[in-house]
């Protein structure tokens, strides 16, 4: 079924949008997506260079439109959680790529001082309540953030980003039900890259029309083609602003995971023909072509922009390689609040047991 979708969209052009006007956000959306794409490519390089602390690196190449399109409508004070494939979302929300890369490298200079890594990166300053290595694990936090926004009348929205794999988890339905029941400012964004690890969505559910599930709970719910970042952004604007006004929402963004589940996964379970077609669903290339077609940017301007972004992201690798590991003593820090005693190291406990007066 998805292959049929691919064929249907393969020949699409942006003709319908030609002359869409100077108000278009496309240049900015393109820039965000290009930064994500390039960052993710550099994450792969960090891994190849043996500088990544985490063996579990999940790249969002092919899924950039979901991050860029939705985050374009988030404001200061809004919050979000992500899944394990969340680099792009954080970057789209304004993260410093050098501190991100340092965190992925397990370095002291990273967002979480090297304790979180790729899958547990967070930044309270940008409202990032945390990436999550448990499928669906970050979803209910947005219900709590929604309760806080209602209680403090902040007008903030909280967005849970997750993959199609998380639609198999009960906590998604519990959370959507609560958000709908209480009219909370929550948005559930399912980045449907067709695969939960090695399992295609068609092998995981009899009804892949995921938005229908959310609609059944009473949420405003849509599916959008992730090839077209402007379409994602338009849908996100409707749904995020609706949520802000008390109508929680669900958005499924259809896209294709260009590479394996994690860095070492070569996707032997995927048909090469399918992969090739999937990689033609490239939101970055699609937006680039549209910018040129519509006369919004010239090819040379875009080449220059891409080059600048490449240099910016190269610098994140250099920065990360130059950073130090966290000091060993920091291991006992932040288990509890700073004013609380740190847990006693095992070695100290053994010393005490074996001490003889």
């Amino acid at each position, binding site marked *: 079924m998805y292959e049929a979708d691919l064929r249907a969209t393969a020949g699409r052009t942006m003709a319908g949008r030609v002359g869409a006007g100077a108000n278009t956000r496309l240049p900015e959306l393109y820039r965000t997506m290009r930064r994500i794409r390039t960052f993710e490519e550099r994450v792969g390089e960090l891994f190849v260079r043996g500088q990544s602390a985490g063996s579990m690196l999940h790249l969002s190449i092919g899924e950039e439109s979901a991050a860029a399109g939705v985050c374009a409508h988030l404001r200061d004070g809004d*919050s979000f*959680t992500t899944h394990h494939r969340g680099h792009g979302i954080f970057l789209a929300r304004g993260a410093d790529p050098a501190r991100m890369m340092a965190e992925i490298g397990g370095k002291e200079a*990273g*967002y*979480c*001082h*090297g*304790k*979180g890594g790729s899958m*547990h990166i*967070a*930044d*309270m300053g940008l409202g990032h*309540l*945390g990436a*999550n290595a*448990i499928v669906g*694990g*970050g*979803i*209910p*936090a*947005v*219900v*709590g*953030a*929604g*309760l*806080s*926004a*209602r*209680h*403090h009348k902040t007008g903030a929205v*909280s967005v849970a980003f997750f993959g199609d794999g998380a639609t198999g988890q*009960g*906590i998604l339905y*519990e*959370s959507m*039900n*609560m958000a709908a*029941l*209480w009219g909370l400012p929550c948005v559930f964004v399912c980045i449907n890259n067709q695969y939960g690890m090695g399992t295609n969505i068609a092998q995981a559910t009899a009804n892949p029309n995921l938005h229908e599930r959310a609609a059944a709970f009473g949420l405003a719910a849509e599916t959008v083609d992730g090839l077209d970042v402007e379409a994602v952004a338009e849908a996100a604007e409707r749904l995020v602003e609706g949520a802000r006004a008390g109508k929680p929402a669900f958005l499924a963004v259809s896209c294709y995971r260009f590479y394996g589940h994690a860095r070492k996964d070569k996707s032997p379970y995927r048909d090469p023909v399918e992969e090739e077609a999937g990689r033609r669903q490239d939101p970055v290339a699609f937006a680039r072509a549209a910018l040129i077609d519509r006369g919004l940017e010239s090819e040379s301007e875009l080449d220059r922009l891409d080059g600048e972004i490449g240099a910016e992201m190269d610098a994140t690798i250099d920065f990360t390689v130059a950073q130090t590991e966290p000091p060993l003593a920091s291991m006992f*820090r*932040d*288990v*509890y*609040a*700073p*004013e*609380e*005693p740190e*847990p006693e190291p095992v070695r100290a*406990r053994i010393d*005490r*047991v074996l001490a003889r007066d």
Partner: protein
Amino acid sequence: MALQELTYRDALRKALADAMTENPDVVILGEEVGRYGGAYGVTKDLIKEFGAERVIDTPISEPAIVGAAVGAAMTGLRPVAELMYVDFIGMTMDQLANQAAKIRYMFGGQIGVPMVLRTQGGTGRSAGAQHSQSLEAYVMHTPGLRLAMPATVADAYHLLRMALTKPDPVVFIEHKALYTMKETVDLDAEPLAWGKAAVRREGRDLVIVTYSRQLHYCLEAARQLSARGVEATVIDIRTLNPLDFDTIRAHVERTGRAMVVSEGVMTAGVAAELSARITEECFDFLEDPVVRVAGEDIPISVSTALEAGSVPGPQLIADTALRMLAGRVPA
């Protein structure tokens, strides 16, 4: 100052009401906490006093109740999530152990999760295998979670009030058999600090370390022992994390004998941990092996006879102490 007679349930309710009055960010969420008033009546009428936006009735969705509390705590609320029975904690373990307990650490100290998870456990109501367990070991085994288990009316009040000021997630496990227990208390009196064990009785012959409902069985056993000429010290640890081992150590070193009493099953339980620590750290002072008196390694039956037989009682505690002190006690 003002002595009053309160039940354990009243004290818990008063702690919630006082905290909610003092701090407008305290909210309660859970199943049946509002209109129903709580399965054991602890939140009775709080919804009338504080409204449905602060006393939030939820669907039957334990994982999302705890998960929503995590998100609320990270964004400026002081949530009290209620889990009707501790037996349901397995449903919530991802949100509790993978999220609440680790968020401060994983995120490099950027933020804590100042929430309280109130629940209740234990035997005593013939509630069967899925509503009678003592699962505190699950919590104590997870770094990042604080754990309080009040045994007295005063502690029901004070430990809950203190839990609601703590910067880290606190699991607060009440005992279902204690809700109707009455004591005359002065809640204005300075409470024992959070994290300090209470020495409920002092005696020269052995130390009994316990918590929650078993405290009362240990005190009953201590009265029986006293009549036989054996004087027991009874320590109520009150908070299992943080654990006040210094108080335990001081009394074990003084008496040379220790028994640990817990309603949870014996194997790999709280009693096992306390026993290991006493053995390791007080080895040179011990006259006898540290003895665990704990729940049987079996599920709890609905039969009242089997239920009562599944957990320690005053007789087993007293008998065990007498055997430890055999030879020193007149037959």
